[in-house]
């Protein structure tokens, strides 16, 4: 049985990696300036025009890699949250963690008036840290307010919705105090925007993704145990509360870094774990890597749609993700008790 699982896992990873590579090339070759896949290969082999090189390496490539990272980060964050809270409808967006991160970033822009120009390196690298703090504050509030002799999954979601509303209200208040230039930037960025990016953003999220996702994979067994429920977990001898808090930290850090790099993208962290569980079953040692790949793949595809759907208008990718995944969310909502 286990062997079958393992080979299925390998096949799934293989297919998904191929999918990511194909979508990578497709995304590289589409956009306002058409560059055919053949030309993309030529350019990668240093055989393209200077103009093609600039479009591909300075504009499209960082965006696509960023989409891959953000998608992966949000998907893993959602997988952890759903496992830890034993609630299939948990997601960093719904719980207000993304809004917390967003508020922190807006406050940062507001108080330091730091603009996100490529030249301003330090503020780009500080951004994920601020976002993490904001996400942590939101998560702390949710945890405290949902605590009533333990954490009830339903109460957690409801409290999350409330916290989300409060943070959004503060967001509106501070956004309106910004000057129009920063205001526009903040608005577009908050609706989940990765097309207007550069390599600095990729570098700022990279350390978070390459350290936190492997750590999460190493905790997969603990997640399995926690998913079984508190009583079973305690019976099996895990120090549940401590492990739960560590895992929540990981989820919050991943969400915070993703939001700092790409804005608040709703529902991705919710649906990817569901799709993953459907494919590979309930074991987290498989769920986390597959979620990483599916999350990245979906966001690259959504980004491609966002860039090309209503040319020449470029949509923030977050809007496309919401429109595509809300129906699936509603389906899940109607199906679960």
């Amino acid at each position, binding site marked *: 049985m286990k062997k079958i699982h393992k080979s299925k896992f390998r096949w799934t990873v293989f297919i998904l990696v191929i999918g990511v590579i194909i979508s990578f090339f497709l995304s590289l070759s589409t956009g306002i300036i058409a560059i055919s896949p053949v030309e993309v290969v030529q350019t990668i082999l240093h055989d393209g025009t200077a103009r093609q090189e600039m479009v591909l390496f300075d504009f499209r490539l960082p965006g696509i890699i960023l989409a891959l990272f953000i998608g992966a980060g949000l998907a893993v964050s959602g997988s952890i949250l759903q496992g830890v809270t034993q609630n299939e409808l948990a997601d960093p967006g719904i719980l207000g963690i993304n809004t917390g991160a967003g508020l922190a970033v807006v406050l940062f822009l507001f108080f330091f008036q730091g603009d996100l120009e490529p030249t301003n390196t330090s503020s780009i690298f500080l951004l994920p840290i601020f976002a993490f703090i904001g996400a942590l504050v939101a998560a702390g509030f949710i945890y405290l307010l949902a605590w009533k002799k333990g954490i009830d999954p339903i109460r957690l979601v409801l409290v999350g919705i409330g*916290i989300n509303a409060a943070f959004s209200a*503060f967001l*509106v208040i501070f956004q309106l*105090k910004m000057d129009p230039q920063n205001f526009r930037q903040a*608005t577009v960025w908050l609706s989940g925007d990765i097309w207007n990016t550069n390599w600095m953003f990729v570098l700022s999220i990279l350390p978070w993704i390459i350290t936190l996702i492997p750590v999460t994979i190493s905790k997969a067994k603990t997640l399995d145990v926690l998913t079984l429920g508190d009583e079973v977990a305690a019976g099996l001898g895990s120090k549940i509360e401590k492990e739960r808090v560590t895992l929540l930290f990981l989820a919050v850090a991943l969400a915070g870094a993703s939001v700092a790099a790409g804005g608040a993208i709703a529902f991705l962290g919710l649906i990817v774990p569901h799709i993953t569980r459907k494919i590979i079953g309930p074991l987290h040692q498989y769920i986390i890597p597959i979620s990483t790949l599916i999350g990245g793949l979906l966001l690259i595809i959504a980004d491609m749609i966002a860039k090309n759907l*209503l040319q020449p208008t470029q949509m*923030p990718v977050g809007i496309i993700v919401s*429109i595509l995944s809300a129906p699936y969310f509603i389906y899940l909502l109607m199906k679960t*008790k």
Partner: protein
Amino acid sequence: MLHTINHSTFLRLLINIFSFIALLLSIGFSIALGAVDIHLNTVWNALFHFDSEVTSHQIIQELRLPRAFAAVLVGAFLAISGAIMQGMTRNPLASPSIMGVTEGSALALVIMLAFFPAASNSGLIIASFIGAGLAVTMVFMIGSFSKGGLTQVKLALGGVAISTMLSSISSLISLHFQLERQMGFWMAGGLADTNWNSIQLLLVCGAIGLTLAISMSKSITILSLGDDIASGLGQNNMLIKILGIFSVLLLTGAAVSIAGPVGFIGLIVPHITRFIMGTDYRWIIPSSAIFGGLLLVLADVVSRLVNAPYETPVGAITSLIGVPFFLYLARGGGTK
């Protein structure tokens, strides 16, 4: 149920009279405070001895008076809608803003602006009615057709799902047709741009909606005991529910199309009213109207003062008041 006996009619009448006086006073303050502070005496004169030569009288007549009236009516309408929804569904979280009315109305508005730019003002308002109604209907459907029925969580999450989807579609359209600025104004608008035309619309919808709501308040009380009991008592639940939804649509549709997003009034006011007035909707509905109006007039005053001379969206203020209450309900308060 024993709870209600303590509320003598006299006491309830007294509370209503007091809160009505408070409402009148707050309207006075709302007119007096603003970019230019006007003395309350002048407010009185402008209302009862209007002199078109005096600038402050004109400000009051043309800007502040309609704004204060709109705040009263919008607050009252949202509160009544919330009371009807909570009474009919017995769900403590039922209220217009949680069920996506704002986003529905915004989407309808953006569609009109993008595809029918020649539409008249009343056309826009009718569209935003329909949008609000569709959003509520969708959230209701999700709740009612799902496993386990219309629970608190279903309603709240269904609202989140529909709101996010609708608002994403509106941003898609508004970005493509470059309507962000107009929509931004509407979303942040609050009550700043109200004039006598908006008041007319509110009054017409309100007259129908309120008459309906008050005339069926007794039936809502019975319905709030449970569908089975109500039909056992010989009540036509279906008819009451349809009439109830109709009046909710009229009242919230009018309120949202004038004031944009004003959250949480419809959620908290009915709870406070039930706490003070008991469980009889013949009292809850009129008192909700007074309390809701009072709350929104005050919130509107706060929104003008908090960051003067700039206005803060009144919806942000009402959210900040409403969220602690929502959290209290989410933690299981207010349910028996």
